[in-house]
């Protein structure tokens, strides 16, 4: 098989999910060129607040340098490279390098080296600030940055998936807020497994998640997994984004199904379009992925909470990722509701989540079992995408291209096709 993705036959070479060489190419061709999610504005509400993350594989500081603006700065001193911030988060008035004392303003400009008088007279100190990411933009509080100066704007990059994102992150006038610092864990699996899982791997739910779906009757998860509503579908959009919307199936007992809290619905009507409001109606769960490695899920958790959870599948190597997981609720919700969303959201989807623990076990097992030359002769199958790829639903009036039913691999293969196009972009 030439290349990684066999478009004709719905297959993907396992090397794409194992190789450190592929990981290095991904950094150049995808992560240093695409808009990458870094965090949410509500994590750094005050001037001087910062969090430390990675953009591609470069360490960066995401800092609120004024009430309105956020900067993303390479967390490495222009003198000899030391980190300005060595923790995860904090608040500061400026960045002073602990190594030899170069001092930077909060927006990254160099204030003084402490030895300015020893530099040649023509030294351009103005060009010696902390390296800023050239592109930083927010979408309803979600902060993205991109190393590529030539990149298209964030809104254009998100395109049609923005309509869906907006329904989850801008559905009340106050917007969504992060309820706690993100959970972080390492998993010995390739980052794309996470992105694929969330863009639309409905097939894994009944088997991987047989535990919580059997035990938690109150959440009707089992019924939902077993029979997808006729209205459930995958949506795919340009740039490789997509989501899967699963609706309450006809005949499913409504008694255990919880709609969005009554108290919040008037806010939704105020902030969203009629179509967006009807998208939320009887929505059981929505999962989605913004190419390359941001995912989100809205799901009922607990007895009557709808949690919105954001995931970052941060690549560490060909066979390892660091996962970050944030829980969100509407700013307007009362504290008691937010506490329940947080507790129950993480019970399901946190660093000890009853869903997560089985996902991670199986993703790591798929990775280790594929990491050998024999297994790599046998590509991964995405074959259930093929019969549906060219037949989008014609009656879909919302943005993006919809595909029914919702338990095929259409969205996942869509992601891999976009990935393949970018990975080949430098080929002669």
């Amino acid at each position, binding site marked *: 098989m030439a290349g990684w993705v066999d478009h004709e036959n719905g297959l993907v070479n396992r090397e794409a999910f194992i190789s450190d060489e592929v990981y290095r190419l991904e950094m150049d061709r995808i992560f240093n060129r695409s808009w990458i999610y870094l965090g949410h504005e509500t994590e750094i509400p005050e001037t001087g607040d910062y969090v430390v993350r990675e953009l591609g594989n470069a360490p960066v500081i995401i800092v609120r340098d004024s009430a309105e603006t956020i900067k993303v700065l390479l967390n490495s001193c222009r003198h000899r490279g030391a980190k300005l911030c*060595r*923790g*995860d*988060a*904090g608040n500061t008035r400026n960045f002073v390098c602990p190594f030899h004392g170069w001092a930077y303003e909060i927006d990254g400009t160099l204030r003084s080296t402490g030895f300015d008088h020893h530099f040649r007279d023509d030294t351009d100190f103005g060009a010696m600030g902390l390296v800023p990411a050239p592109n930083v933009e927010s979408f309803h509080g979600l902060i993205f940055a991109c190393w590529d100066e030539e990149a298209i704007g964030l809104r254009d990059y998100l395109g049609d998936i923005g309509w869906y994102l907006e329904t989850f992150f801008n559905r009340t006038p106050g917007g969504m807020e992060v309820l*706690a*610092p993100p*959970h*972080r*864990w*390492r*998993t*010995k699996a390739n980052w794309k497994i996470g992105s694929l899982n969330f863009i639309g791997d409905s097939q894994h739910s009944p088997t*991987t998640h*047989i*535990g*919580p779906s*059997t*035990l*938690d009757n109150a959440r009707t998860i089992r019924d939902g997994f077993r029979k997808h509503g006729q209205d459930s579908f995958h949506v795919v959009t340009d740039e490789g984004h997509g989501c899967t919307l699963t609706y309450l199936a006809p005949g499913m007992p409504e008694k255990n199904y919880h709609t969005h809290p009554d108290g919040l619905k008037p806010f939704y009507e105020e902030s969203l379009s009629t179509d967006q409001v009807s998208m939320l109606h009887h929505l059981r769960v929505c999962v989605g992925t913004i190419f390359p490695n941001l995912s989100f899920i809205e799901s009922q958790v607990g007895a009557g909470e709808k949690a919105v959870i954001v995931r970052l599948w941060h690549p560490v190597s060909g066979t390892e990722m*660091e996962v970050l997981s944030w829980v969100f609720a509407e700013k307007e919700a009362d504290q008691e509701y937010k506490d329940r969303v*947080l*507790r*129950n959201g*993480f*019970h399901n989807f*946190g*660093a*000890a*989540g*009853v869903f*997560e*623990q*089985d996902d*991670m*076990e*199986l993703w*790591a097992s798929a990775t280790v079992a594929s990491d050998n030359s024999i297994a790599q002769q046998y590509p991964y199958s995405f074959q259930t995408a093929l019969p549906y790829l060219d037949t989008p639903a014609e009656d879909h009036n919302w943005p993006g291209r919809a595909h029914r039913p919702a338990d095929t691999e259409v969205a996942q293969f869509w992601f891999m096709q976009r990935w393949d196009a970018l990975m080949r972009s430098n080929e002669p």
Partner: protein
Amino acid sequence: MKPVSNDEYLTIQRFLYAEAALLDQRAYQEWFALLTDDIRYQITLAIGRPLEDGEMNTAIVDEDSYALKMRLDQISDPHLTHAENPPTIARRLILNVDAHHDDQSGNLNVTSNILLYGNRPGEVETALHAGAREDVLLQTEDGFKIKTRTVKLAQTVLPNSTLSLLF
């Protein structure tokens, strides 16, 4: 807050060892019986903040008995778990135990360090989690019951997948 007597100390220590042994042996229902109905059970991850900010943690588990029961039912049933089937071979080491009487409530405030060693079958690398525990124990006719437990993990990032075991 008065320190417990040496005799009391030994009884408490014996309870903590027996309770950890139940978890090691995956006798989860027996272990669950040692919790009060209104148990609050928390596990936190540390956040790396500047020294002057003081210690900060974020909860990764914050559960009542209903949620804990589901968690334990899941990892007890061979058909309902992948993370624990085959099971993690686990050993819990309980160290640095200290205990005080809470004069107001009559409960015992017990602190200990725990080291959880968990090996997935076939893997050479082993997960090691160190944590500081703060328990409130109730003295009942049937012996001690755990009313609250907080496990502060000495990690900012879980190094080896998610947690499926309790401390």
